[in-house]
Every structure is written in structure tokens, then in C-alpha cells.
């Protein structure tokens, strides 16, 4: 619907293609990379997950032992719970800001493209850079927030935002919203701009109020775009690692260990490589399920435009 200039042409049918194996030569480098650095590792992960695999020494076959351990691993369950909690909250927060922003920058007005660019800037820097920037801003002694709040008389003394779970969580949410909202805004913007202006105009002439137009026209027509933005936000958030590693080191009280962080700890800190692989397979299964759900959701959007 928003294929701007990039078309799948029907040229395919006009001209016979050169057949044979030469085409395989062209795609060979890509296939080699995907095979060695993606397909093999995935298969290898499955294989490793069925072993007790220490860093040094011989791996030992233990069948589904790692998976049995996983189900009763309270810390893994805590990581799953925390990741789900984080994903839900951050997605809601991003949408709550990105949707109004998308509507704000939709109409062509003076300076609007400058606003768009500025809002988008944090998207192109790394999450690691953003985390480093914000962990300083949130620092109790040398940062911005605590001293500023104290100076404005909002708090008695300086609050250490990163020492308490709730405030540390809130800080990270604000940071991620700052970093990601521009991305979601642009996705939503493509959906908004795909709504034909005549439709909105017609609804206005028919006397639909602003809220009615939004509720009964904009929202239904945005289904597909919103589904896409939602899925991107959810899959991205489930894989969160940098911000927890850099900003809070998983603290306070190790309550900010996300799934990827836990896999990292098991695999590369405790060197339980087999168990780490089993956890990875669980993560992989979750993500693939979401991807399949995504395809289904987008198709549903197609049937009911």
C-alpha cells in the first residue's frame, strides 16, 4: 500500500529468463554466508541444547535434560516474566507517544519535516550509546535528573533513580521511548498518509466530528500499519539487552534480567553452553511464534481493509 516507487514489476512475464545454473553462481556468496553463519548455528544450537556442554572438556548427551531444568528454573521464569512485563509497558508507552506524534507531523506545514527529522534522530544512534547517555543523566551525583529535581524543590535531597526498581524501570522506559518513538512514528505516518484525503473530507462533509473520524475512519484503516508497528515493537522489546546491561547491570536486586541477559549469563558468564542453547531455543520458539502470528495478523488486515 505504501510501496513508494519500489515495485514488483510484471516484467517477469514479458521476457523469457536465462535458465540454468548461472544464477546460482550469483547467489552463491549470499547462500554460503547464510548457511555458515545462520543455518548451521541454528542446527548447532538444537544439537547443543541436548548436551551438557562445558567450555572445556567433552560435551555429554543428556537428551531433554536442559529443557526439564529450564521448566523448573525459577530465575529463567523470572526473566521471562520481567521481559513480558517490560515488553508490554514499553510498547504501550511508545504507542502513547508515537501515535500523537505521527498525527502531529502528518500535515504538510512549515517546519514539519524538521520536526520529523529531529524526532527521528535518536533512532539512528545505537542503543548502547543511548544507554550510556541516559545512565549519566540518571546518575544521582553527576547526572541531570536528581540534582534538577532537587533544585526545583520537587524532591527532598537527591533521589538515586537507578537504585530502586520502580524508578530505574521508569528511567529505562523513558530512555527507550526517547530512542524508539521516532521509528514507530514514521511507520504509523506511512499508514496515516495512505488514507485517501477524499475519505476524510467526505466524512467531514457528512458531519463526522474529529473524534468520530478518528475512531471510525482512521483507526480501522490503520489496522495493518498498527499491527506491523506493534509486532516490531514487541519483537524488539523481547530481545532487549543493552539497556539493562549498561544502565543497571541487571539490578537492583537482579530484578532486571531480561531473557537475552539471562542467556548471556548462562552461556558466557557461567559457561553452561548446553543450557544456554536450550534457553536460546525457547527464545527462538517464542520469536518464531510471534512472526507466524504476525503473518496471520497482517493477512487478516488484508481481508478486511
Amino acid at each position: 500500500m505504501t510501496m513508494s516507487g519500489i515495485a514488483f514489476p510484471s516484467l517477469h512475464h514479458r521476457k523469457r529468463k536465462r535458465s540454468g545454473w548461472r544464477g546460482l553462481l550469483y547467489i552463491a556468496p549470499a547462500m554460503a554466508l547464510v548457511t555458515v553463519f545462520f543455518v548451521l548455528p541454528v542446527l548447532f544450537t538444537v544439537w547443543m541444547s541436548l548436551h551438557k556442554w562445558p567450555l572445556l572438556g567433552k560435551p555429554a548427551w543428556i537428551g531433554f535434560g536442559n529443557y526439564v531444568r529450564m521448566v523448573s528454573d525459577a530465575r529463567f521464569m523470572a526473566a521471562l516474566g520481567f521481559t513480558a512485563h517490560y515488553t508490554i509497558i514499553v510498547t504501550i508507552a511508545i504507542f502513547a507517544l508515537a501515535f500523537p506524534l505521527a498525527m502531529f507531523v502528518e500535515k504538510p506545514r512549515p517546519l514539519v519535516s524538521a520536526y520529523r527529522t529531529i524526532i527521528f534522530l535518536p533512532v539512528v544512534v545505537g542503543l548502547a550509546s543511548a544507554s550510556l547517555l541516559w545512565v549519566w543523566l540518571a546518575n544521582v551525583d553527576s547526572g541531570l535528573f536528581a540534582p534538577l529535581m532537587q533544585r526545583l524543590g520537587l524532591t527532598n535531597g537527591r533521589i538515586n533513580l537507578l537504585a530502586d526498581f520502580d524508578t530505574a524501570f521508569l528511567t529505562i522506559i523513558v530512555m527507550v521511548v526517547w530512542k524508539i518513538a521516532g521509528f514507530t512514528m514514521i511507520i504509523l505516518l506511512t499508514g496515516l498518509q495512505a488514507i485517501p484525503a477524499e475519505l476524510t473530507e467526505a466524512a467531514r462533509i457528512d458531519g463526522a466530528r474529529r473524534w468520530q473520524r478518528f475512531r471510525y475512519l482512521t483507526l480501522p484503516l490503520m489496522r495493518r500499519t498498527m499491527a506491523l508497528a506493534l509486532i516490531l515493537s514487541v519483537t524488539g522489546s523481547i530481545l532487549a539487552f543493552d539497556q539493562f546491561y549498561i544502565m543497571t547491570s541487571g539490578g537492583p536486586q537482579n530484578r532486571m534480567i531480561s531473557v537475552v541477559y539471562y542467556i548471556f549469563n548462562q552461556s558466557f558468564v557461567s559457561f553452561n553452553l548446553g543450557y544456554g542453547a536450550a534457553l536460546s531455543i525457547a527464545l527462538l520458539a517464542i520469536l518464531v511464534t510471534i512472526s507466524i502470528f504476525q503473518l496471520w495478523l497482517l493477512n487478516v488486515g488484508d481481508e478486511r481493509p
Partner: protein
Amino acid sequence: MRTRREIRARKALRDRVAFHGVGIGTAFFFLAPFGIGFLASFRPNSESGLPPLPPWPLSGISFDAYRILDGFGSGVWQHTMNSLVVSLGTVVLTVAVSVLAGYGFSRYRFPLKNALFVLIIATLMIPFQSILTPLFIILARLGLNNSLFGLMLVYVTLQLPFSVFMMRNAFDAVPKEIEEAARIDGARDLRLLVRVLLPLVMPGIATVSIFAFLNAWNEFFAALVLLSSNDNYTLPVLMTAVRAGRLGAINWGAVQAGVAVMVVPCLIVFLLLQRYYMRGLMAGAVK
């Protein structure tokens, strides 16, 4: 009549003030952290522990923070070069591999063509975070453990689904007649691809390049896991040492200097090539 026009003019003015009020407030929220961090990186060492109120240096611009940053690891130049080598290498390899593959998928017919294309795209579904352990082992077997080249190959692979998709579409959009004409003139295969078609798919290459550069430059997790020796660290991995501090004391000036070194190239690349970046984003979004 006159009052009516006046009322309308006043309403328009109020509208405009409200619009730009919101706009400026929003822009401030998104720009301020960059500005504060950037300004603070030029404060002298004596001020680096103070809150950024105000953020600018009070006693003259100083490069203390950058000097202290330089004292970490093998020096900031070395690590910037590491990051640059990995990022630019990723760009070159990604472009080379995806141009070839895009051309192959667009212009040739061969066995299992669709299945192989879907396989490349389907790797998007699988988070690379879940296959890092075997990647670590495979790279070690190839003698590429703790190597920037190994990391580069991993980054290229991660870029492939998006890049091959982009390049195939770019080649699909090139009219066949151009190719036929060049063929009659005697250009064949790779020469045809490089001399005749490459200039026509330059916008696609620009898009692929900018995404490859930014993703490789910013990537943290794989670099953290796959690089084990100090002098090979890319900037984000180096920064974990700076952020951890020395003897329990963190030099926040050095942290902000590091952030500036990491952030400024991204912003410049984006602002210069914004058009191509957005094109890629839209193409990815509708995929």
C-alpha cells in the same frame, strides 16, 4: 465583516502558535539529551563530576574528557579504527554480496530459486541473539575467533535479508530493454552488471550501505560476546570499561566523550543520506 476576518486571522495565529509550541517542546525533548551530553564532554576534568547545570563548560572549553577516554583500552583512535574497519568492511561486503544475489534472483531462473529466497528472508524471524554460542564456536573453528573480520562476516549475514530484498527489487525495477541493448553491444555477465546496471541501482546500494553502516557501527551484543581481547574492542564494547570506571570511580566526562564519538558519525551519515534511509525504512515496513 471586518471583525469576522479579524477573528479568523487571530484563530489562525493561535493555531500556528500552538502547533509550533508543541513542535518546539517535542524537538527539545528529543534533542536535549544529545546537546547536554555533547556540551558536557567539553567540560574540564574538575567539572566532570558536577551535575550538568548548566551543561556547558564554565571555565573554558577543554578536551580533558577526550584525553581521559584515550587512556582506556588501546586508546580511542585504535578503537575508533576498529569500529570503522568493521563498519566499512560490512558495508563493502554487504553491497558486493547483495548486489550479486539481487541480480541473480531478479534475472535468472534456477532450481529452488523461490525456496532459497524465502530462506534468506526467513532468517529475519530468528533472533541472532539466540545463535551466538554456536557462532562463537564456528568462528573459532574457522580461526576467526576474536577477529574483526569474523565479526564483520556475522554482521554481513545479519544484513543480508534486508539487503538482498532491496537489491532484488532494485534490479526488478530496471527495464530489461537496457540490458538487451547492452548485450547487443557485446557486454556480458559481470561486465554488464558492473558497467551498465550498477549505476542504475545506485539508490538501492545507497540504502543498503547506510543500513549496513549504522547497524555495524552501533551493534553491541555480538561484539561483546565475540571479541575477547582488549585491542580488538569496537567502541561500544570499549565503553563498557569506561562506564565501569577505575577503582570504583566513573569519569562521566570520558563517558560523554565516548558517546559523542559514537553518536556524531551516525547523525552525520543519517542527515546526509536521510532520503535513502527513509526509502529503506518504507520498503522494510511494507515487506
